[in-house]
């Protein structure tokens, strides 16, 4: 899932300062599951903004909405009539959701209430960890299912740096050393020999370095539709 955290109330309040009528829009997918932008969080934020503004002797109208997925047109199109009535839309979606709303409603200011952090999972109750950077060229078959691109602070491909100690990363003891995990997995699976081979320099062109990415699935295109036009 995409993991995000809500910005501070002060920061959000400052963003909406100039607006009197705001529509807060939660998202029912990833950010609901990571408790940052679902219905409950959206309602809490809306109430907090009203309360803060009233304590400051001013007023703000914050209305509430949730869509199942802010990253799909068919869900956000349902908001199109409502959106027109507000000075701004405050999105509690991830960065994808914020941009989808902005793209769909070009005449409306769309503001982000969350900081989008990573693709990851809840490793324990109340703890989320990053697992994938979307580099576009997966090598997990070679590293025992542990990603060094994402989980090694130095993105090493050929083994641990000199700062790995007791299974921990030199950057922070709360971070497990990815290469320590890779080695232990390889030992357990009898795959150690594979780690002896030199991993060549990675082609980053499939990653963000190649520019914003896009895929076209010809098999899913509607016949007659022209590819490449927005």
């Amino acid at each position, binding site marked *: 899932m995409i993991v995000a955290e809500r910005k501070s109330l002060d920061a959000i309040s400052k963003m909406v300062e100039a607006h009197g009528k705001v529509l807060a829009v939660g998202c029912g997918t990833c950010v609901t599951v990571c408790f940052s932008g679902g219905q409950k969080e959206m309602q809490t934020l809306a109430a907090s903004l009203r309360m803060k503004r009233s304590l400051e002797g001013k007023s703000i109208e914050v209305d509430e909405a949730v869509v199942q997925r802010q990253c799909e047109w068919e869900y956000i199109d349902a908001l199109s009539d409502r959106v027109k009535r507000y000075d701004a839309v405050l999105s509690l979606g991830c960065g994808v959701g914020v941009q989808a709303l902005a793209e769909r409603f070009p005449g409306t200011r769309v503001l982000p209430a969350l900081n989008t952090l990573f693709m990851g999972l809840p490793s324990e109750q109340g703890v989320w960890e990053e697992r994938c950077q979307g580099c576009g060229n997966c090598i997990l078959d070679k590293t025992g299912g542990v990603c060094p691109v994402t989980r090694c602070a130095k993105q*090493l491909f050929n083994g641990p*740096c000199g700062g790995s100690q007791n299974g921990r990363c030199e950057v922070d003891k709360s971070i497990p050393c990815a290469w320590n995990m890779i080695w232990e997995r390889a030992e357990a699976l009898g795959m150690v020999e594979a780690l002896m081979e*030199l991993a060549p320099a990675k082609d980053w062109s499939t990653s963000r370095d190649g520019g914003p990415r896009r895929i076209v699935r010809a098999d899913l295109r509607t016949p007659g539709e022209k590819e490449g036009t927005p």
Partner: protein
Amino acid sequence: VNPSTAIANPSAPTLKSGSELERILAAGHFAVTAELGPPRGCDAASVRRKAKILKGSVDAANVTDNQAAVVRMSSIATGLLMLAEGLEPVIQMTCRDRNRLAMQSDLLGAAAHGLRNLLCLSGDHQSKGDHPGAKNVHDIDSIQLVAMVRAMRDESHYQNGEQIPGGGPRIFIGAVENPFADPAAMRPYRLRKKALAGADFIQTQLVYDLPRFRDFMKRVVDLGVHEQVKILAGVGPLKSPGAARYMRQNVPGMSVPEAIEARMEAAVKGIAADDKAARTRAWREEGKRICVELIQQIREIEGVAGVHVMAIEWEEAVPEIVKAAGLLPRPLAAA
């Protein structure tokens, strides 16, 4: 030795770079390298002063590359100042600050200026340095850097496979290994990987824990890696018992036995606690003595081809240590 002559006329055609360090190791001498920390500003005089201290006592001196992720004078620029003083530099290059384009262009420039030794490192993470908000690069890792430089030198091609007009840079390629980091079982194999990638020499993390270092070297020798790459053990004089304690507790991947710290403590026995100058002197003398003893014991370990003496901001200690360890005169300096 006039460095420009030494570089222009490598003594044997089989040499890969013709650097003094390569020639000393190829001749089977026990090599001695040191470290020269570049200034935090533009002070060329401090580089010349340190180079004068080290010259004649070591075969070459490493120039760190934004060590500890703190901005300093660039390694290549500092190396040129050293070269002018007649001290052969080992340019350090981390994967943290440059992508493959920047690395290759810097290496072409370094070679054009007569720099012949390179040490390839991952680099300390920027979160530990003076610009923690910096973006790191890590386009390639330190082993891929070794492989890239080897291909530039031996096959005259860039990392993309295209030919380098006029041939690639003649560079003696170094890498590092930390015998005390984890996972311990993987370390000798990782060292072998560096040798396979094309490393000519290795400099290790500081050795204070001899039993663990012996154990590591035994496994390295069992794999035959010492025959593929020249291994220089890292050593360094302690300035105080606190320094030993700090390294043990705060530097990931460092092993400093408590016995060494206790010996440093004992060095000030009988000196009044308020006589700070006398205590500092006593500690530093003991630090140098321990370093000399470590060198002498390390020299006896199979597979060790030299020592790398790290005394950052205490370069004066290096000539004394090298002399006391019986490693003077240096072979080429005497020639």
